[in-house]
Structure formats: structure tokens, C-alpha cells
């Protein structure tokens, strides 16, 4: 029998401080704020480009800069490196704690809720230019007001979401 008590997860404040330090390092090394969902945009756009569609003609990429540095492609840029590193890091961490397992889909309802939630989140991140990392966690340390606006409405959204979950979905 393993000693279960020694495997207590880190408290939130330890993770928070570490994330803060890592965020500064990422900005220092790559010269760009850390973003997650913009990397998903790159992956999606990259695959569509592989199919032969010229996404650079799309309205979104004409109105908004795709933020890629010169010489970088959709599949080869800092943000992709970071998300691959996050996945490898999480994988090593669960292996180290022997907590790795394949998770199943519990029900059709969970699958649908996750799918619809994912689409809404993805669409929302393009309207707000980032998720809670890009538009919040990277924006506030840069003294940008949009991070605070995003933060306030993120909490409002989470509150409404919890109410809906509690009342109708559980």
C-alpha cells in the first residue's frame, strides 16, 4: 500500500506563483505574451491550409494580423511549442504520481455538452482574442485594461454557468 497522504496536491497559491514566474519567462524568451487558444487557431488554420485552402484570404486574417513572426508558419511557432510542452509536462507529471488513466465518455449528454461548450468557447476566444490565459493572465501583467474587463466578465460568465448547471444539468 502506498502512502496516500504524501501525495497531496500542491495548494492553489503555489501553482499560482509558479505560473506567474513561468509567464514572465515565456514573455522574456519568446518576446510575446503567452496564449493558448491562438495556438488552436494556428493548428486549425494549418490543417485547412494543408487541404489547399488559402486561409490568408479569409476575412479574419485580413482584418486581424495573424501575429506570426516573420518566417514562422502555422505549425512552426512559439505557441505550438508551448502547448506541446504543456501536454508532455502534464503527461510526465501524471506518470510521476502514477495517476495516469484513460478517461471514458460518461454519457451522450456529457459528450454533447462538451462539444457545444467547446464550440462556444472557441468562438468566444476569437471574439475576445484569447482565453483566460491570453486575454486575462497575460494581459493583466502587461497593464492592459482589456485583461480586467475580460476578468470581470469571466467571473460573471462562470457564475451564470454554475447557476445553469446547478439548476438544469445536474
Amino acid at each position, binding site marked *: 500500500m502506498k502512502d496516500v497522504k504524501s501525495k497531496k496536491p500542491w495548494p492553489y497559491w503555489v501553482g499560482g506563483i509558479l505560473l506567474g514566474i513561468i509567464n514572465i519567462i515565456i514573455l522574456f524568451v519568446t518576446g510575446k505574451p503567452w496564449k493558448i487558444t491562438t495556438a488552436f487557431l494556428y493548428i486549425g488554420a494549418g490543417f485547412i491550409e494543408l487541404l489547399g485552402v488559402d486561409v490568408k484570404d479569409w476575412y479574419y486574417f485580413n482584418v486581424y494580423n495573424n501575429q506570426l513572426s516573420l518566417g514562422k508558419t502555422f505549425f512552426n511557432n512559439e505557441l505550438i511549442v508551448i502547448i506541446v510542452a504543456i501536454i508532455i509536462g502534464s503527461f510526465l507529471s501524471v506518470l510521476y504520481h502514477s*495517476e*495516469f*488513466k484513460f478517461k*471514458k465518455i460518461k454519457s451522450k449528454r456529457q459528450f454533447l455538452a462538451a462539444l457545444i461548450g467547446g464550440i462556444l468557447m472557441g468562438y468566444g476566444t476569437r471574439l475576445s482574442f484569447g482565453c483566460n490565459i491570453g486575454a486575462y493572465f497575460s494581459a493583466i501583467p502587461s497593464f492592459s485594461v482589456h485583461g480586467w474587463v475580460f476578468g470581470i466578465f469571466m467571473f460573471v460568465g462562470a457564475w451564470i454557468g454554475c447557476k445553469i*448547471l446547478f439548476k438544469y444539468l445536474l
Partner: protein
Amino acid sequence: MAIYELDCMYEACPIPLLKVLKKLNDMKVGDILIIKTDHSCSIVNVVEWVEKQGHYIDYLETGEGEWEIYIEKAK
């Protein structure tokens, strides 16, 4: 004293915490709630919240990445 079970397997935040919150409302003082989960965040946020509410709580890792959380409603 009744014993209830709550299946929170394959569910992520905030579902387990909200399910516990809802279930505790229906329970009487002294009742036991056993939660099965494979979400490591649950053994932090569920435990923290329940302790703050003043109930008794403990948990055990029953398998690799699987836990059982035990709650006794105290008030």
C-alpha cells in the same frame, strides 16, 4: 444514518463540487456521502469547500488516479 453514493467518474470541474453541494442539501445530519472521482482537482476543491462548511471529510486513493471522498454531514 443513511449512506449515499455519488458517481463523479469522468467528470471535470466544477461538476463534482456542484453535485456534492446539491446532494448535501438533501441529506440529514450524520448521513454519509461517498463520492467516486478520477478528477484530481476534486480532492482539493471539494475537500476545501466541505471543510469550510464545517462537515467531516476524508479521502483515499482507491486506484491509480481514482479517489473516494467520504463526507459526514455535521450540521
